[in-house]
């Protein structure tokens, strides 16, 4: 696995308030890397430091093997980004905004590429419309378009689904998957929508109060933790007896029993239930990442 971005011991304070405290993490080539944390955890600050918008007090960042410096911006040619809300020149059209970005990126024959990315984000029919007439969702999509316009190796997306309806969120996820898989772009993806991170990220980082809480593969982190499972069976009493004998903590709600269990233990539990001649009607997992996240950040 090739490291594309490595952050080591990043520190940053604004006045007396320390925002980042020895933060370290690593993004590998090809990752869709989730970046999670509650409000004020330091996510945006971290991303701004990577992009050279904010100067760190201490720490080291390496991109494609080269240490980056606040005053040397050359490495940014391989990075595209959408930080917080997407801001454009409202009096210009979508096409003109992207044209300016293309000019900054020294794109040869920018017209084709502009149309290509606008098509990817489903904005081609509105390319001549002024951006000030766009909805929030359209602006978010245009933001992604400008981030990938110059075919960077690495894209940073800071809450790209912010303010979008479920369909809009789904569209964003599809776009992210497409650019990751087809264009081989590594993505650092910050989000509050935990289901999104769980759905599309392969690796993630959870931070709080400027510190790393957990980092690793999403499925590995999920399997470490106990999740809530609800089971509906034909003989509730028999199941209660079984769970008690196996040492599970559970509670009964109407016609379902809820218990906490590790993901990798679920198959064994199901086998035990079946072996005890209890018929299973339904087994459901609850939002595990949310619980996991809340648990970690609360601690």
């Amino acid at each position: 696995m090739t490291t594309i971005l490595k952050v080591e011991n990043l520190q940053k304070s604004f006045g007396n308030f320390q925002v980042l405290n020895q933060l370290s993490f690593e993004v590998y080539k090809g990752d869709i890397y989730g970046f999670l944390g509650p409000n004020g955890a330091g996510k945006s600050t971290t991303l701004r430091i990577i992009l050279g918008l904010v100067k760190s007090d201490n720490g080291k960042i390496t991109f494609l093997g080269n240490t980056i410096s606040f005053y040397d911006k050359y490495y940014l040619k391989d990075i595209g980004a959408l930080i917080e809300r997407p801001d454009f020149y409202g009096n210009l059209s979508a096409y003109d905004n992207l044209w300016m970005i293309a000019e900054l990126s020294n794109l040869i024959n920018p017209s084709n590429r502009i149309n290509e990315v606008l098509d990817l984000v489903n904005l081609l029919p509105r390319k001549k419309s002024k951006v000030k007439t766009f909805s929030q969702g359209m602006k978010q999509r245009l933001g992604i378009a400008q981030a990938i316009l110059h075919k960077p190796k690495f894209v940073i997306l800071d809450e790209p689904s912010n303010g979008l309806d479920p369909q809009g969120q789904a569209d964003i996820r599809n776009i992210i998957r497409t650019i990751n898989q087809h264009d081989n772009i590594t993505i650092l993806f910050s989000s509050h929508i935990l289901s999104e991170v769980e759905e599309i990220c392969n690796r993630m980082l959870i931070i709080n109060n400027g510190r790393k809480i957990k980092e690793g593969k999403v499925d590995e982190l999920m399997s470490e933790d106990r999740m809530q499972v609800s089971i509906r069976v034909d003989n509730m009493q028999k199941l209660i007896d079984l769970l008690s004998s196996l040492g599970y903590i559970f509670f009964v709600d109407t016609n379902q029993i809820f218990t906490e269990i590790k993901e990798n233990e679920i198959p064994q539990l199901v086998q035990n239930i079946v072996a005890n001649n209890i018929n299973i009607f339904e087994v459901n997992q609850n939002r595990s990442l949310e619980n996991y996240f809340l648990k970690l950040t609360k601690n």
Partner: protein
Amino acid sequence: MLKLIKLELFKIFTRPRTYIGFGAVVFIVIAFQISMYFQGKAIVSFILDNLETTFQMSGNIINANLATYILLNGLLIHIPILICLVTGDIISGESSSGTIRLWLQKPFSRSKVYFSKVISGIIYTLLLLMILGLFSYVLGYFLFGFGDLVVVKQGITIFDQDDLLWRFFYAFLVGTISMLVVTSLSIMISAFATNSIVPIVGTIAIIIVLNVLTVLGYNVFEPILPYVFTTHFNRWQLLFDYNLDYHEIATTIVVQSFYIILFLTIGLIHFKNKDILS
């Protein structure tokens, strides 16, 4: 860098606000020259009343040269306001709208981004002044024709028409240097501010306050006034002395150049190091 400048100019000239400045200059020139067309003789008669008792005057005193000369006095307050409308917004406007991030997350040093904005601000200033001068001259020619220039300033000096072109040229240069101080000051404040209002209002307020100090507080502030940049705003008039005072002209150029460099340097240092949080 050329590309950055080209894009900055594209942004400036696709904004409606830019044309407020040009429109205002055109309006001022038209309004002034029309009033001069109807009232000029009365005004000139008032100024030269002293001479009319002694001399009979022949020749066209109300002409394009006089109109342009008088309009150049707008360099004191009016033109600085119109300059600030665009240059004051050149960094802070993008900070408040967030579009500054689009530029700073590209592989260009902040110095290049800063200087591309400075240069495009300078180009806008030069264009504004050129429109003032050329339009005034051309409209004046159609309304009044050319002629000798009567300058009333500690006496009366009459310049032959043939002697005027180079004077106006250098006067515009000197006036331009002063206006570039305004450009630099507004860009410097813009580098610190996160909204458009502060640099525009701030720059104008500084100019007005310094002008008031120059007039009302002369006795108190006399020793420092030669080093205050607003004192030199009307020094382009030195080019309309019969015998040029080269020392004074050089002093003006040096003082104003110092302020340009000072303001731009302060702005650059701050811009290079500031955290972009918007």
